[in-house]
């Protein structure tokens, strides 16, 4: 997370970072600073252009589309700008979909946290050799495509699938979960678990264990030492991991489409549905814009609240 990296924007006035006395040679000093800034800008230029072309401008289109007009054939035309699409956002269906997405994303995030924390803790307390091997293990799933792995779950979860049969074998009754919301949550947890493990690992691995020893020396129980030392120190990892899991889960599309049977829409599927099936570009764009805004605000609030510990 580079949010706290020192940044300098053009027009900040005389740079003071180096702590040199600029009174001595104001002209030269400023010139050198400028050259440095220019160099930095040129180095960053390709990325800036890239982001501008493929992120900022398309995003501008999405915003523009959300105010545009839908023709009778379902084309979106950039004229007669209006708020119709935003008026639709209050519809029951959009609300239902939004709450369902929120609920699923929260559940998936919590499950990921509960599963990942002990694992990350375990990994970070191993010897460097074992640690690296286990980290590779966590990342191995990324070696094959997410879509293929999700389809693999479909095979495991279908009526004759291994998971279903195992469920029935241990007496959990009709273990059929394909095309249910449980299957979607399972798919989300499976897909995003590594995103929770890695930041947690990075945070826990950094903890100075002498602090824990100190706590124990002061007669803290194991639980108490965890609660008052390890947990607060690993908070940055918890926050980063939660955001990395929550954000993509909230807008998930592939998982609900393949494992959820494309019904009980979540926001991601709802947006795709608006664009491709309903041919309602303005509403699809408006939902996207609102989701983006909500996510941005939520993330900022989350970072702010956790910021003291970061």
């Amino acid at each position, binding site marked *: 997370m580079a949010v706290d990296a020192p940044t300098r924007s053009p027009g900040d006035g005389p740079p003071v970072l180096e702590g040199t006395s600029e009174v001595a040679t104001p002209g030269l000093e400023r010139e050198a600073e400028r050259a440095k800034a220019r160099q930095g800008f040129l180095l960053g230029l390709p990325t800036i252009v890239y982001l501008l072309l493929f992120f900022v401008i398309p995003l501008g289109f999405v915003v523009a589309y959300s105010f545009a007009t839908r023709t009778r054939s379902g084309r979106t035309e950039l004229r007669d700008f209006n708020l119709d699409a935003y008026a639709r956002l209050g519809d029951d*269906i959009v609300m239902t979909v939004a709450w369902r997405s929120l609920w699923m994303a929260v559940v998936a995030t919590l499950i990921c946290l509960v599963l990942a924390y002990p694992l990350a803790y375990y990994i970070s307390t191993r010897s460097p050799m074992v640690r690296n091997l286990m980290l590779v293990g966590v990342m191995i799933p990324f070696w094959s495509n997410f879509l293929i792995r999700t389809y693999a779950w479909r095979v495991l979860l279908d009526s004759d699938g291994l998971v279903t049969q195992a469920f029935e074998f241990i007496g959990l009754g009709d273990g059929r979960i*394909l095309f249910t919301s449980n299957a979607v949550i399972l798919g989300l947890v499976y897909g995003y678990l590594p995103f929770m493990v890695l930041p947690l690992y990075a945070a826990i691995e950094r903890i100075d264990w002498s602090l824990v020893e100190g706590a124990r020396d002061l007669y803290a129980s194991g639980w108490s030492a965890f609660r008052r030392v390890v947990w607060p120190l690993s908070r940055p990892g918890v926050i980063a991991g939660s955001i990395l899991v929550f954000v993509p889960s909230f807008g998930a599309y592939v998982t609900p489409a393949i494992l959820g049977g494309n019904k009980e829409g979540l926001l991601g599927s709802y947006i795709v549905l608006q664009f491709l099936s*309903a041919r309602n570009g303005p509403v699809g764009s408006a939902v996207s814009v609102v989701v983006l805004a909500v996510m941005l605000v939520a993330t900022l609030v989350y970072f702010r609240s956790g910021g003291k510990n970061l």
Partner: protein
Amino acid sequence: MKAMKKWMRLVALLAVLGVVAASCGSDEESAGADCEAGETDGDLAFFNWSEYMDPDLITAFQDEFGVTVTEDFYPSNEEMFAKVSAGGTGYDVIVPSDYMISILVSEGMILELQKDAIPNHVNVSDKFNDPPFDPGSVHTLAYQWGTTGIGVDLGVTGPDVPLTWGLLFDADLAEEYGLSGRISLLDDPRETVGAALKYLGYSLNSTSADELAEAEAVIADAVSRVAAFDSDQYSELVVAGETIVGHGYSGNFLWDFEEGESEYTYFVPDEGGTKWVDGMAILVDAPHPCTAHAFINFLLDAENGAQLTNYNWYASPNAASEQYIDQEVLDNQIIYPSQATMDRLEFIEDTGDFEIEYTDALTRARG
């Protein structure tokens, strides 16, 4: 710092200009290049329904004309339209169905075909020339035709199932045959809302808001028993035992039933259903209109048309192909329905302003 600001502005300006230039370029009216029969002008980008083309035919075309064919697939007319309506997709040939052809023509999105570059157009049966959705066959030539109905795993339901859309929509029938959670519906507004309209005894081209609302309620009620809205894998799901009844197209069901271990059937319900014809069309902004003409001509060849039907088990609109089509295919009443069945079928027609109501109804119904 001033210099940097200027820089930024310049970059932003260039970026915007680039985008504007790119989008203007795609708006340019294509003058409909003059193509000779068999002339090619580059590689072909083919945008087709999924599981609808014999890969051997693609290979044969590539070998014969020395071009490369890129295929992309869509599961519904609406999705295809949403993608090509933005323009600049780079696709040459698309395969829209009847009502979508009317829409594409009225939106000016497909070229008038140059018949002299497609000598094989004479092979198309009279029944499919001059269709109501494209008078005079000016913009399209028929690709394949078929019906939309229900595929059933008889191994689960037993051999006697009522031939009704109720298998998809009716709670009591779902109870009786254990279908709950084992039904798939097409992810396609006109087909799925149309099936509900037929179930209610209305026309599937209804433009009555009340009838549409009833149909929407029927689908909304069925959603809790539906496993999936799927236009790609409905037949695979039945054969895999994941669903028991599926809503889908005749040929795909037949194709996959061959693989299954159970007894299956496909039928068009007694209430009637959809017949459809898909036509080959060339987008106005097609980068390679001549290769596109050559490709359409190639597919309308008598033997190639037969090969297509023998492969995908949809009926051929190609009169010259009939002698090359396998007898078992011609005799199959699911592929070539009896006149009695045909009389119960309707084409989906463009409902104009009402079109969007269908898509909205399905979106609302699935919740």
